[in-house]
């Protein structure tokens, strides 16, 4: 094994990518599920090993084909990418392990091997974005993961998934192409695609217009991919009509990886070099974040469909993440990154609970789950506890990131107080929309003809596993806080 150890950053991508065609050839649904889960768990193990290396302050770089850095493609893992790798591979593994029975309902047996192959390609693409240090390589991996995720979303039985996926494809491609234009313009001016090299070389041409245009294209393109308000319109429908297990995976990590690229470009490449870019960044991101938090939470309060309600809540939570980043302080960025982690935990657990409900309930409308808690007590108890984490009740993971966010905003003086008010109001709105579900499930009269039974054991175990993690990282948050703080110092340290 020591022979493979130096190659772990490459294996992080190679393992799922090479397993994908293998899974496709298996043609047997349980076998392909087992192999896909094993590959995903293997990727998770690699992510954990890399994270331990990062925690031990070892620098991880890898030269593809041993070509030296500005010419060859360099892979690198730091605290930021390690945190994201843990989320991506962890969410994928948990969703796969939980989802066998849930997928049987949504996808025919003979198409399942193809489905798992697409799943592994999403995983490979997302992991590739996180380990690579090359701007064009990021584009390629972004498209690998996006194309495969369109397939996953379209896999469900609901025909409304198709127009939703078409819209997702159009918006996603426009976002990726904008990013490509931006990278092209930077290459035109600097002659490099390596991010670290770009940071040094862009300094000489920073005041020229193509660089500013590139900054605009890259920011807007990635904001589209990350569903930053008001570029989020593809998200609610795509999440609502996707198979339940796919929603667990995508909601936990897909948009956040785009935020990762956005922050990496903004803090590593643009902010140290472009004059006044930190102000542009703040004035662009902060109002949009606040609008996202308030408007998306407001929409969630009145949304009749349970999955779409949670999807709108995701748009709001992305607002918290970008709000933290837009404070441009170490505490603020830490809060944003912690929220990426904690929101993945809370929303992952909530969508897993929804997948449990989906085993018995065909239509995910809030009025069709009346009294379901009597039939599915464990599922609804998990939903309530994960909901507490989403709201940010002390003792849960969601509380930790909101606490950091409020600490960071208080340092801004009077503006900070206004921001705290927004955070508190939106948390109350979260109480309202979670309560609507709880009220329906616990206090409405149950449907007398309902044949609902408790969800199958693997799904229930995974849901409760995610819930326990929400409380574990709420009471003992040392590891994510350490990773998020070092990542924030890394990002902030690049500013001049």
């Amino acid at each position, binding site marked *: 094994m020591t022979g493979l150890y130096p190659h772990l950053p490459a294996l992080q991508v190679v393992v799922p990518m090479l397993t994908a065609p293998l899974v496709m050839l298996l043609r047997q649904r349980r076998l392909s599920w087992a192999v896909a889960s094993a590959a995903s768990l293997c990727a998770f193990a690699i992510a954990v090993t890399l994270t331990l290396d990062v925690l031990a302050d070892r620098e991880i770089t890898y030269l593809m084909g041993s070509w030296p850095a500005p010419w060859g493609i360099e892979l690198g893992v730091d605290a930021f990418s390690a945190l994201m790798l843990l989320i991506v591979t962890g969410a994928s593994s948990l969703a796969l392990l939980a989802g066998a029975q849930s997928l049987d309902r949504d996808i025919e047996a003979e198409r399942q091997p193809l489905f798992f192959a697409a799943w592994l390609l999403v995983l490979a693409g997302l992991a590739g974005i996180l380990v690579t240090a090359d701007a064009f390589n990021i584009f390629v991996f972004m498209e690998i993961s996006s*194309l495969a995720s*369109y397939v996953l979303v*379209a896999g469900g039985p609901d025909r409304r998934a*198709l127009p939703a*996926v*078409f819209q997702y494809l*159009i918006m996603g491609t426009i976002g990726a192409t904008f990013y490509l234009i931006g990278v*092209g313009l930077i290459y035109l001016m600097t002659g490099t695609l390596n991010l670290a090299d770009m940071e040094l070389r862009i300094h000489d041409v920073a005041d020229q217009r193509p660089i500013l245009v590139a900054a605009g294209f890259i920011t807007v393109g990635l904001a589209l991919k990350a569903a930053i308000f008001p570029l989020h319109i593809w998200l609610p429908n795509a999440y609502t009509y996707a198979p339940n297990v796919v929603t667990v995976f995508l909601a936990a990590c897909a948009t956040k990886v785009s935020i990762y690229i956005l922050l990496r470009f903004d803090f590593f490449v643009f902010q140290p070099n472009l004059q006044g870019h930190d102000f542009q960044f703040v004035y662009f991101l902060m109002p949009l974040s606040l609008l996202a938090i308030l408007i998306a939470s407001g929409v969630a309060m009145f949304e009749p469909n349970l999955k779409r309600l949670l999807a709108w809540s995701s748009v709001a939570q992305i607002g918290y993440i970008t709000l933290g980043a837009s404070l441009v302080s170490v505490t603020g960025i830490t809060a944003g990154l912690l929220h990426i982690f904690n929101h993945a935990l809370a929303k992952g657990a909530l969508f897993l609970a929804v997948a449990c409900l989906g085993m018995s309930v065909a239509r995910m409308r809030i009025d069709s789950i009346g009294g379901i808690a009597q039939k599915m007590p464990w599922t609804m108890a998990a939903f309530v506890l994960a909901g507490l984490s989403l709201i940010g009740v002390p003792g849960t993971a969601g509380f930790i990131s909101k606490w950091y966010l409020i600490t960071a905003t208080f340092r801004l003086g009077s503006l900070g107080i206004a921001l705290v008010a927004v955070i508190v109001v939106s948390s109350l709105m979260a109480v309202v929309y979670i309560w609507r579900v709880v009220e329906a499930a616990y206090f409405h009269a149950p449907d007398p003809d309902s044949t609902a039974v408790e969800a199958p054991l693997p799904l229930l175990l995974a849901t409760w596993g995610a819930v326990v993690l929400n409380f574990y990282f709420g009471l003992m948050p040392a590891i994510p806080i350490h990773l998020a703080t070092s990542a924030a110092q890394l990002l902030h340290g690049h500013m001049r």
Partner: protein
Amino acid sequence: MELLGLYYYWVFAALLMIGFYAVIAKLNLIKKLIGLSLFQAAVFLLYITMGKVEGGTAPIFTSDNADRLFSNPLPQVLILTAIVVGISTTSLGLGIVIRIKEEYGTIEENEIQEIDRQ
């Protein structure tokens, strides 16, 4: 003169906007995909343009042409990858359009929304 001298960038911008317009304004899903392809093709042209060095020749290195000026081959290599991505996107998009036609019986965006609202 300087503005006209950069005409290839004008072609890029014009193609980009024509494609973008089709994506936004057309209701027919196939026409949207055509616009999307045009939009991507414009970016390919941007990359290929930037690789050209004035007076440069094809970058084939032999022992007797070491002093010649070469064009930059990297953007072409990059765009080869981007073309593959573009083809995959278009074919996946067309596949989804076929499925939409099977399920809804139409590929007009407004008619699909009408059917979903019922």
